[in-house]
């Protein structure tokens, strides 16, 4: 068994920042990560970090833009904290040596980004995330913070009180990927989950293979509600074969979208008569999919993004990296042919419910980064707002877990007096593990264990048994089959177009996946670097997370931010200025709502139309 004051699960931007903060606050902290820190998906972010740094800009403007972008589903205390802290935390990165792009006078550069009223996106070339990740890792090395890399965290050690609000988290259980050894990690002060996004729940995503929602699933099964999971951002221009992102820059420079008949469909079919290709992400993504669904897609799959008319010179000057991406990952030369693109899952606005200090409803359990929902992004994240979230709330969660007092939070968490139960929606099938998970099934995992005494030991024991069961089983279904089926269902039915019937179909398929998972087995008999085993466990997590996304999408019958419903294509402020919360109640998802907080420090954000 290992023992530290604070255990941080995940070593992307959020986890690294949390670890440094906990260290600063005097705690003995360790990072436990299934990837070596520099492999984390934060490294893929290109665009930049929003922070009101300049004279003429103001944190209040940043907060206002974020609130508007969220379609009024962000909580004001979180949004304001983000906007207030981002400048200092961005400057801190600069003092840690991050190579930001520079102006003539040597100050850091900022550029305009969609939805921002001021050019406040601070960037480091087209590799902002890469530099943020490496700079943070350098600080971890400098401080000698212990890193357990290639350790896969399987479970949380949480006590078993009836009410999740009374539970405590005492550590985590992880296995060493290289040797297969399973060990407990005792956390004397707290556990911070920073395990990243759940993009792999979808068939086509800009997210890494490692983005499997493990943090979400572990917290969920321990009793923490997942918040606003239905809000998934889809990016309209990702490469079809890999999901690699082609940045908005191409359309910004004048790139044109064509269907298979060579029509400029954004105008031709009236999807966006004013802004055309530059309409917001969700509008363009839906237009592309409509084209494909109506038989005007190329190979029934994608559309073309053409930049040839810009001329070689301009392309080389401004979009050279796009040429490389198309060439390296799709085998297409953007100078002589149009690039294939289609919508891809990109970002999850929802996640593990926390307050503005990163605290969940379970004592000693914190979350930060894309896996958490504080919530700053509400219904829709603005480009450049995720990276500041990592450093601002990663820092806060790290401090809080280490015992530094950040003051009383304004945001409430967990099931309590201020929530409203979901009563109306009819579910097509029984969701959750009910009737399936018995303690001796291969799927049994997570949830709560015992009282504080011995909770970690018992969780370790349970985890070992589960792995043994998975390894001992000789035949059955392989995880890749189930995972593919799940991903297809999500991409077919819980994509940019959402209909009641479609979502219900998805829920039925998810149920089938769950049933099939009862018969899952791991073919690779080796304990050494068994990725078959790891992916099998991840697949279970994806099932739980996908189900919450689909449930959220089903109950929220309105169009807000990135969530569109055919049956009610308007934002319904009367009924829906509230967060969707789903918690795992003894294996059965319980759905409830908590009102959004629009009252800020000294003003109230009045919902306005989200038009740009």
């Amino acid at each position, binding site marked *: 068994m290992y023992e530290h004051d604070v255990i941080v699960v995940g070593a992307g931007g959020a986890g690294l920042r949390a670890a440094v903060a906990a260290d600063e606050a005097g705690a003995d902290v360790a990072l436990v990560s299934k990837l070596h820190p520099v*492999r984390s998906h934060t490294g893929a972010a290109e665009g930049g970090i929003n922070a009101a740094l300049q004279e003429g800009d103001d944190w209040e403007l940043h907060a206002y833009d974020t609130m508007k972008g969220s379609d009024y589903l962000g909580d004001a205390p979180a949004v304001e904290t983000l906007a207030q802290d981002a400048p200092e935390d961005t400057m801190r990165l*600069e*003092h840690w040596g991050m190579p930001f792009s*520079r102006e003539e*006078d040597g100050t850091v550069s900022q550029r305009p980004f969609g939805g921002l009223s001021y050019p406040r996106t601070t960037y480091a070339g087209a590799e902002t995330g890469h530099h943020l990740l490496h700079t943070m890792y350098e600080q971890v090395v400098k401080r000698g913070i212990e890193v357990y890399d290639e350790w896969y965290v399987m479970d949380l050690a949480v006590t078993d009180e009836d009410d999740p609000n009374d539970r405590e988290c005492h550590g985590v259980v992880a296995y060493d990927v290289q040797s297969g050894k399973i060990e407990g990690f005792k956390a004397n002060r707290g556990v911070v989950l920073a395990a990243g996004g759940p993009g792999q729940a979808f068939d086509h995503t800009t997210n890494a293979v490692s983005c499997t929602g493990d943090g979400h699933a572990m917290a969920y099964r321990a009793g923490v509600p997942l918040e606003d999971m239905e809000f998934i951002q889809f990016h309209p221009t990702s490469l079809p074969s*890999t999901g690699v992102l082609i940045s908005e820059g191409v359309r910004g420079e004048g790139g044109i979208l064509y269907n298979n*008949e060579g029509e400029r469909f954004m105008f031709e079919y009236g999807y966006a008569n004013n802004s055309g290709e530059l309409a917001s992400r969700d509008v363009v993504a839906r237009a592309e999919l409509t084209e494909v669904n109506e038989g005007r897609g190329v*190979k029934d799959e994608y559309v073309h993004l053409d930049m040839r008319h810009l001329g070689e010179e301009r392309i080389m000057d401004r979009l050279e990296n796009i040429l490389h*991406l198309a060439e390296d990952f799709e085998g297409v030369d953007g100078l002589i042919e149009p690039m294939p693109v289609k919508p891809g899952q990109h970002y999850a606005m929802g996640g593990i419910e926390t307050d503005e200090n990163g605290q969940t409803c379970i004592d000693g359990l914190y979350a930060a980064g894309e896996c958490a929902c504080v919530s700053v992004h509400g219904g829709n994240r603005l480009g450049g707002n995720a990276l500041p979230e990592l450093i601002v709330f990663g820092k806060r969660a790290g401090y809080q877990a280490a015992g530094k007092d950040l003051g009383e939070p304004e945001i409430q968490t967990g099931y309590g007096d201020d929530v409203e139960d979901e009563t109306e929606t009819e579910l097509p099938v029984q969701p959750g593990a009910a009737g399936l998970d018995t303690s001796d099934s291969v799927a049994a995992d997570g949830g709560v264990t015992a009282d504080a005494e011995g909770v970690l030991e018992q969780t370790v024991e349970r985890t070992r048994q589960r792995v043994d069961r998975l390894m001992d089983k000789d035949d059955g279904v392989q995880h890749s089959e189930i995972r593919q089926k799940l991903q297809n269902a999500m991409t077919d039915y819980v994509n940019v177009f959402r209909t009641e019937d479609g979502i219900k179909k998805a829920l039925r398929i998810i149920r089938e996946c769950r049933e099939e998972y009862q018969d899952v087995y791991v073919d690779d008999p080796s304990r050494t670097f068994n990725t078959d085993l790891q992916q099998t466990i991840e697949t279970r997590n994806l099932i739980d997370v996908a189900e919450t996304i689909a449930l959220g999408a089903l109950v929220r019958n309105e169009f807000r931010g990135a969530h569109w419903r055919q049956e009610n294509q308007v934002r319904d402020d009367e009924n829906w200025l509230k967060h969707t919360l789903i918690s795992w109640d003894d294996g059965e998802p319980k759905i409830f709502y908590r009102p959004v907080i629009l009252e800020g420090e000294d003003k109230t954000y009045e919902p306005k139309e989200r038009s740009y």
Partner: protein
Amino acid sequence: MSTQQQQPETQEAPEDPEMKGAESPVDEKEKEGGDIDQQTTPEPELEGETVHIKVFRYDPEVEGKQEPRFDDFHVPFKKGMTVLDAVMYARDTYDSSLTFRHSCRQAVCGSDAFFVNGKQRLGCKTQIADLEQPIRIEPLPHQEVVKDLVVDMDHFYDQMHTVEPYFQNEDTPDASDLEEQRQSRENREKVKMSTRCIWCGACMSSCNIAAGDNEYLGPAAINKAYKFAMDDREPEDVKEHRLRILEQEHGVWRCQTQFSCTEVCPKDIPLTEHIQELKREAVKKNLKFW
């Protein structure tokens, strides 16, 4: 175990019909898009065919895999397919025990440097269509093999950590309205390429010197030091301290400018040039102080 000593005989995979994988060609329903543009390039010849890959296999624990061998897989070709796509397909379709690191699929995480047709390359950044078949995919040479294509990266990380890979300036001010340190565009441009390293280890694996001298810092670590040493935001005395680390016996002077690291670096970092420049800096410093 090191790939250095073993160049195992190619062993054909068992004649398991499944292994052949010569299944139906991709996407029967593929419908040609209308005449969008006269200029679209013709589909490459490989479309609809299968690709033959030979993948190195080894597992210290599993009988039959303790002796390294090569397995053959035939994978349906798709336009844009990379080496990583091919091994992922083989794993997900034919043999779930096929093991390799990968994550981002877009050349930023540095997980999947393999030895492909005799050269260090990133799997996700290497187009199948550009390679001779059968394509041999092996773990990085000169590193311990953990299993299949996975090598032990600890030595690489240790070397990276040796050069004190973190920014060193006067203490970061604590004030809440921090101001940035100024840096000229020229200076930012100077360190630009060096900051792109993704820790993939391809350079180290390609380097003869590193193969012979286990303590040699290696191109990636020296490049990491370059990034700080050339950054004007670090004070002069720190730069000297860095040069001293680099000058030691197993530092920059070991490099014999063979350029193999520069050739394989997937991020096009001019590693050899950076090492040369540091040698010159070290000479200058010594002239000054001796």
